[in-house]
């Protein structure tokens, strides 16, 4: 933050970095080879919906946009913390296509001026023995971290750290472990 901003008590809304998302398919190949993790074909974008008509309009645009693709099922839901989740499910499990869909959602929101309100994008994976894992993309950091929930309020840290070790060079992973925040009770993973 710049000195003048501190002096005058201003914060600049942080703009999201949307392009790292396209590195996910190659990272998914690595995860499949190393840890037998497969994409579930489901991904979700989470944002804090601002009050007012503009936000409601942007949400209408989104649903219009995504109903164009026949293979994608889109649902919009609200979680207990007041964040909105746009969940895309592809029946054909096509990860590159899913990433393109999610990117379209992000671009639509950012173009409508809600870039600073974007929280994260989560892409769901599952292991051969049924464990769930979400790759969480933090817009503001431009980094990805794994989140593996096991039941209520518990996470499989071992699996998460294995994933981080495997991802290494494919995609920028979040180095600060204190920012690997849990997202319980969400549509994905």
């Amino acid at each position, binding site marked *: *933050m710049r000195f003048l*901003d*501190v*002096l*005058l*008590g*201003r*914060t*600049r*809304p*942080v*703009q999201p*970095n949307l392009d790292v998302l396209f590195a996910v398919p190659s990272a998914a190949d690595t995860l499949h080879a190393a840890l037998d993790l497969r994409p579930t074909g489901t991904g979700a974008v989470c944002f*804090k*919906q*601002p*009050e*007012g*008509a*503009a*936000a409601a309009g942007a949400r209408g645009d989104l649903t219009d946009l995504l109903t164009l693709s026949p293979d994608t099922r889109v649902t919009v839901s609200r979680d*207990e*913390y*007041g*964040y909105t989740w746009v969940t895309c499910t592809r029946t054909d499990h096509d990860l590159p296509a899913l990433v393109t869909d999610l990117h379209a959602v992000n671009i639509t929101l*950012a*173009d409508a*001026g*809600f*870039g*600073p*309100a974007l*929280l*994260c994008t989560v892409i769901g994976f599952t292991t051969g023995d049924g464990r769930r894992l979400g790759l969480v993309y*933090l817009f*503001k*950091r431009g980094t990805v971290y794994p989140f593996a929930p096991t039941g209520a*309020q518990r996470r499989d840290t071992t699996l998460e750290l294995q994933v981080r070790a495997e991802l290494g060079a494919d995609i920028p992973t979040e180095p*600060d472990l*204190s*920012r690997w*925040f*849990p997202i*319980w009770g969400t549509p994905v993973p």
Partner: protein
Amino acid sequence: MATRTRFAPDRQLSARMGLTVFLLGLVYVAFVAVLIVLIKSIAAVVVIAGGLLLAQYWFSDRIALYAMGGREVTAAQAPELHAVIDRLCALADMPKPRVAIADTDLPNAFATGRTPQRAVVCVTTGLLRRLEPAELDGVLAHELSHIAHRDVAVMTVASFLGVLAGLVARFGLYSGMLGGRGRRNQDGNLVAVALLVTGVSAVVYAVSFLLIRALSRYRELAADRAGAILTGQPAALASALTKVSGQMARIPTRDLRTAQAFNAFFFTPALGQHASLATLLSTHPPLQQRLDRLATLSRQL
């Protein structure tokens, strides 16, 4: 990437805050100049005042937490509160502060700590009990904005010379009353200098006091604004404000008195009935002004 946001910058607020900071600086420069001209050994006073403020700055988190009876809570002890703060920090791209809960029914929240890395956000159980999730979001975003704006550091630096001037004025007054009488003949010159220093310090103290209060009010408005932009819901913050300030007057007086020293870091000050008396002297802007600002933001959406 081009900046896309629906919020226009509040130039008026920036300009007023800039002017206040400038005037404060001007008062201090003049004060230091007068001190240097009038007396040679001010080192002791500077060291004492500087030491006090440095300690206050350095231990601000522990002092405030201890005074409010706040205890730090882990994610396992308060999962919802942690989840709310986690998400807001991810939205604002800032490091997560420590989280504390104070066991008092006074509905309030404060943020303290010298850097964003060492910050603490503390909420009272009274606040958690009264507010809806969206309102709590707004209050926490307001407190996180205080941390992002480094308000503890700014206010400490801003009040440094004011405190120093207050000390000099008091010191001069006492030493003048105690030792001034007998020596008037030998060094009348010295007494005159001492009187002048005391007078100047008193004026500097009074002026800087008013300016610091103004600065504090502007920073509250700035934090309101940044918090509302972060959550995108100015109305929720406004509703939290009315709820909290409406209930402040009904709190038992014992709590009010013990809490008053920490008003500077509070979400709304615990002033009770006399709030209307001294807008000029208060650390927080009046509720009506804060609500008006938030309504303007709400219309921009």
